């Protein structure tokens, strides 16, 4: 009797580094053993994909980035998958894609993805005809509000210094009303995009949200301020499946399963231990 007590009591005091070790093991496990499970497409991701699929030909789309370096580890799946989808729409439907960033890091992050996809201006002569990377826009809400009214006042050149007037893709695009859709990838909330683009001008907005911000964005999705939302790494993995180009999302989603199982096991063990100790009057 006394022995079991001490086991459960000990368990509640186990050095947390053993838990960390367990976590490391299950994170690395999928790299050595194939544990991939079938992934069901959720309604949210399907809606997102359908919305983009139903965009009319020749639409102008702002592909806005607001991801920090810290959030990129999670958002890489979505960022790359949506960029691929954008280029697919550009080729198939003649959509014009305007890539831009809303924080310091987001001049370089899209550039990195463009390099990875072979769409960097040094790699692709089509740059500037159908798509452009405007670099990043400073100033948060103030900057966005200004950009919405008068794009060229604050971003007269693209990221590599070519004046916008020399780029055919920007022809006739001077304010937010000339844009059909804004896609916004965020790791720190999408309030600014909603209040500067959606509320005053009614521009449709799609959001790619970090999983942590999904609950906070739900009321806005429900109120119609956001048209569709892609949620966390699972959303990224699902979009990869929908566009039939598997990538980092589908690799990491297996790790999500294994880590979640371990975390739930931790929770369960802790609670069993707690109740046993409680029933024995130890707490």
């Amino acid at each position, binding site marked *: 009797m006394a022995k079991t007590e001490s086991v459960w009591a000990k368990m509640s005091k186990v050095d947390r580094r053993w838990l960390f070790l367990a976590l490391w093991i299950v994170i690395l496990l999928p790299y050595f053993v194939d544990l991939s499970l079938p992934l069901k497409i959720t309604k949210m991701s399907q809606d997102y994909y359908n919305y983009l699929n139903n965009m009319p030909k020749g639409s102008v789309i702002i592909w806005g980035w607001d991801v920090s370096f810290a959030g990129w580890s999670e958002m890489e799946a979505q960022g790359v998958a949506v960029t691929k989808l954008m280029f697919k729409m550009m080729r198939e439907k003649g959509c014009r894609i305007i890539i831009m960033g809303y924080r310091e890091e987001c001049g370089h992050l899209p550039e990195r993805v463009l390099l990875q996809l072979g769409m960097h201006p040094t790699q692709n002569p089509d740059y500037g005809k159908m798509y452009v990377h405007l670099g990043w826009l400073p100033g948060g809400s*103030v900057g966005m509000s200004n950009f919405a009214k008068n794009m060229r006042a604050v971003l007269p050149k693209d990221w590599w210094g070519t004046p916008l007037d020399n780029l055919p893709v920007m022809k006739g695009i001077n304010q937010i009303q000339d844009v059909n859709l804004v896609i916004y990838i965020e790791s720190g909330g999408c309030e600014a995009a909603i209040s500067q683009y959606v509320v005053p001008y009614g521009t449709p907005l799609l959001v790619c949200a970090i999983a942590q911000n*999904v609950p906070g964005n739900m009321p806005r999705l429900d109120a119609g301020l956001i048209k569709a939302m892609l949620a966390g790494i699972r959303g990224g993995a699902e979009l990869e499946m929908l566009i039939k180009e598997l990538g980092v999302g589908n690799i990491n989603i297996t790790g999500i399963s294994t880590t979640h199982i371990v975390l739930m096991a931790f929770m369960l063990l802790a609670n069993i231990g707690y109740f046993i100790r409680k029933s024995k009057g130890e707490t």
Partner: protein
Amino acid sequence: MATFEESILAFLTVWGTLCIYSYTFKDNPFWKWATNTLVAGYIAYSAVVNIDWLLNSIILPMTKSMNYIHLLGILVGFLWYFRFWKKYFYIYRYALAMNVGAGIGISLPRTVRSDITQQIGATMLKLYGTGTLLGDFTNLVIVFSVITAMIYFIFTIKHEGPVGMPIGWISKAGRWVLIVTFGVAFGNTINSRMALLLGTVYTLMKPDNKIYFGILGIIILGYLIGTELLERRKVAPEIITTQKPD
């Protein structure tokens, strides 16, 4: 085969990441190195990127055709730096005040619509006649939850007396709504954090980086465990005496 440059890149990537992860074991010099490097690197990075924007979008175009608003912005912008001048630091408040004022003026009216009036508008749902039983139930839950949770945040009514008592009950229900919200949000936070972790591990396990991950991982872990064991030997008696019964 990776080039020399790529190898250095891979080495640095793995080294930096592992130095930070070493913190989960305990505070150590690798972590100190990493956090100082990161703080400095990030601040310098954002400064140069901002300078680059100013140069490219504002200052260089100004040399071609004068834009007085841009010029005024830059000149007034120097007021910020009075902050570091003891005697006239208060001038810096002018820049701050303008900046804060513009921020409020631009975001407030729109936030009122997106976060307050539009949200209340979206809560005005049909309580019956949506067609399905689940639809009716869902609407009822939404309406009930929003209203009770909002009443939870009303503080100036005491939960006593004929008016206060029912409000107290409603407020209790609101607390339960918030708890369910937090439960769901916690699940999503776990998802987010695990995804971050997996993303960095994905970088570590890239073909170029794998080998460094193995080598550096063993070196850093060896150092940590070694120092831990040494420390334990030194302070072991003390731990026993200071441990408090739970």
